[in-house]
């Protein structure tokens, strides 16, 4: 039997959220406006901060201690615009980036494996969870010297610090996401006699993506902290940012020190943002939490 459904479609469309019909124009205009709304206050805050910094460096510190707090201008001239400094920092930045990404990569692979294992076997969850929490609670600064004793001064030894510090959020957020599946969907897969592997691949893992990406973003930021801490302790081999920070401080090269700190922060922000962007891209078409237009 043929029934004309066109009228039904139209009237039901009115119920649908506006976005699919509202069109890209509105979305774009909204994006421009909200971008300005985000950027302008941030720039004002930065200006206030730099202004205060300038004031503190020139008026709040006695003359013979001013070398401790260089003015923003001095940081620019001796740091950012000084070719020797920038040469050193660029080389270090590259080393630190490699270290962070390598450690993070290993943490992601291991973390996902451990998360799946914990989900699949109750005993694995019971066995692993307390140690995950312990690992998270361990002060990395305290065990870093131990790492040098065990692993020497290799790239691997530094990587282990990065892995330890960025590991925890990955299996825990993955586990949470795999567990919080709508019971109706579980029934649906049971009715079809789907295998363990099928349920994992088509139901549990995709369901865990939003939560996992929230964890990955945190881990990404932590990986840079881990890399810098590792480098501060492993004063051998080619110098990463952590080592530069130590060296500049020791030599009392404060403008250079500030520059190194700024670049460490920028690296953290960049890796954090990259994972935020990646996550948003992966789930934005379907997940409520994803930012679509602002």
């Amino acid at each position, binding site marked *: *039997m043929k*029934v004309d*459904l066109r009228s*039904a*479609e139209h*009237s*039901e469309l009115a*119920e*649908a*959220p506006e*976005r*699919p019909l509202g069109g890209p124009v509105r979305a774009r205009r909204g994006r421009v406006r909200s971008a300005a709304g985000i950027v302008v206050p941030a720039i004002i805050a930065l200006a206030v901060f730099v202004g205060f910094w300038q004031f503190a460096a020139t008026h709040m510190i006695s003359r013979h201690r001013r070398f401790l707090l260089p003015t923003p201008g001095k940081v620019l001239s001796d740091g950012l615009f000084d070719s020797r400094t920038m040469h050193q920092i660029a080389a270090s930045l590259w080393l630190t980036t490699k270290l962070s990404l390598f450690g993070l990569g290993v943490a992601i692979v291991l973390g996902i494996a451990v998360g799946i294992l914990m989900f699949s076997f109750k005993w694995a969850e019971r066995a692993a969870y307390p140690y995950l929490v312990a690992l998270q609670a361990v002060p990395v600064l305290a065990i870093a010297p131990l790492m040098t004793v065990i692993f020497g001064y290799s790239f691997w030894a530094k990587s282990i610090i990065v892995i330890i510090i960025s590991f925890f959020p990955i299996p825990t957020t993955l586990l949470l996401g795999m567990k919080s599946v*709508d019971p*109706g*969907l579980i*029934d*649906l*897969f*049971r*009715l*079809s*006699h*789907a295998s363990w592997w*099928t349920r994992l691949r*088509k*139901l549990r893992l*995709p*369901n865990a*993506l939003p939560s996992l990406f929230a964890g990955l973003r945190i881990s990404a930021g932590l990986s840079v902290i881990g890399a810098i801490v590792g480098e501060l302790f492993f004063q051998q081999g080619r110098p990463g940012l952590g080592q530069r920070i130590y060296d500049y401080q020791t030599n009392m090269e404060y403008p250079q020190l500030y520059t190194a700190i700024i670049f460490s922060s920028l690296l953290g922000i960049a890796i954090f943002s990259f994972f935020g962007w990646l996550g948003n891209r992966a*789930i934005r*078409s*379907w*997940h*409520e939490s994803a930012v679509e237009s602002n």
Partner: protein
Amino acid sequence: MAEVETSVVPPASVSGAPALAFEQVSMTFPDGTVALRDVSFSVRRGEFTSIVGPSGCGKSTLLRIASGLTEATSGRVHTDADRLGFVFQDPTLLPWRTVLGNAELLLELHGVPREERRRRAREAISAVGLDAFELFHPKRLSGGMRMRASLARWLTLDPPVFLFDEPFGALDEISREKLNEELLRLFQEKGFAAVFVTHSLFEAVYLSSRVLVMSSRPGRIVADIAVPFGYPRAQELRFDPAMSEVAGEVSAALRSVW
């Protein structure tokens, strides 16, 4: 089934052996609650049976037993559990899949090759009028459209038995009426056996060839009321005094067990 004056088309053909049969089915939960006691009934293809009863009377449990999701403590259920449509209260769509992807899911889980499952999924989507929304994710659909997508998913299996667990309960009146019409159209087209749980007496009478009334704690079937109207059913039937009369009969049966 009784003849009706309002209908010129004969009722959907009721055929063959029961597609679903309950024989003295009882269900006691581990905590001792008796959910169902000695429930027996059968539904044939082309028959639309609604089940009404006070909330907590075990209607949903009954459907879960029919589908094999829950096992009865005693009694027998006869059906082809592998070819069963089960529309839940919620649309339960995979949010990361489009309408098309969701419609393909069950065939995928049954190992149907890609080409064929795409074709059958498209047919089912078309049957529920969602052609234009194939590539939409559920979050962009209205409640009514999500329910259609959920229905389309099961239609791909062309099941001889369809179980419905208050599928339109969460929808507004207008969407609900529209989906009622479409469900009836699909029912006539496919001729499946339908078991429809609802708490709306009018919906039960309007859709069904037969209404079963259940009592609560323990859930038993206390009345089996035939609805004397054929298919297709005219919209106007909703407001026909004859329909109110049958609804009144169901209501009376319900009140007697409250």
